C-alpha cells in the first residue's frame, strides 16, 4: 500500500472540497483521515495539508469524546465492518 501511494501525487482532499471548518459531527468528512482501527492517519499517508490536518485531529478527538467514534478497536471490541456505523 505504501509503495503504491509513493507514486501517486498526493493532495489535500479537504482543500479540494473547500472545507473551511471540519465539523466533528459530520463523520463522512472524518472518515478519510481514519484508519481501519479508527486511528488518526498521518499526513504523509493521507496527503492532507497541515492546516486541515490540525483541524481534523481536533474534530476526531471531539467525536471520540461524544462516542461517535471509538477510541480503540482491539480484539475484545471487534467491529465486524468498521465503517458500517459511519453513515
Amino acid at each position, binding site marked *: 500500500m505504501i509503495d503504491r501511494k509513493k507514486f501517486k501525487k498526493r493532495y489535500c482532499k479537504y482543500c479540494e472540497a473547500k472545507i473551511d*471548518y471540519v*465539523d466533528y459531527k459530520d463523520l463522512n468528512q472524518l472518515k478519510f483521515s481514519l484508519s481501519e482501527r479508527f486511528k488518526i492517519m498521518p499526513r504523509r499517508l493521507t496527503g492532507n495539508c497541515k492546516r486541515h490536518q490540525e483541524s481534523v485531529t481536533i474534530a476526531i478527538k471531539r467525536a471520540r469524546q*461524544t462516542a461517535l467514534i471509538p477510541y480503540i478497536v482491539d480484539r475484545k471490541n471487534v467491529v465486524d465492518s468498521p465503517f458500517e456505523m459511519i453513515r
Partner: protein
Amino acid sequence: MNRYETLFVLKPTLTDEETTAQITKITDVLHKQNAELLATDLMGMRKLAYTVEKQNRGYYTVLYYKTHGSTIAEIERNLRINEEVIKFLTIKFDNTKEIKQFNKIVDSITQKSKHIPAPIETKPIQESESIETKPIQESESIETKPIQESESNENIEATEETKIVQEINTEAQTVESPIEA
C-alpha cells in the same frame, strides 16, 4: 455574546415524551441564563461507539445558542446533575471562520424546520411561503452534494460487488446446466 454549541446524549431507556421533556428542561435552563437559543438539531437515536454508563445507544441532540461565557458553567452544572444525560460537549465558535460555519449550520437547520411544518400549519398563506422556500431548496441541494457523492461511491462499490456475485452465479449456472442436460 459568544456563540456556543452544546451536544448532549440522553439515555435510550426514556420514552419519546420523556426525552422531549428532558430537552425542554435543558432549554429552560438556557432561557433562565438569558441565552439566545438559535437552533436545535435532533440527531435522534444512534448507536454509541463504546458503552457509556452501561448503555449501547443514545439520543443525540445539539443546541446552538449565544450567551456570555460566564453562563456556560451554570449550564454545564445542570447537565452534570441530570442523570438522564450520559454525555455532553460544549464548543465555542471563536474565529471568523468558525462563526461563518456556525451561521451556516444555524441557517440550514432553520430552513429545514421551516420546510417541514410549512404545508401542515399555514395553508392559507401558501403563495408567499412557496416563494420563500424556493431558494432554500437550492441551497440545500448544494450543501448535500458532497455527502451524496460519497454515498454514491459506496453504492457503486456495492453494485460492483453485486455484479461480481451475479457473474459468479451465472458461471455456476452455465457449469450446472450442461450436467442437467
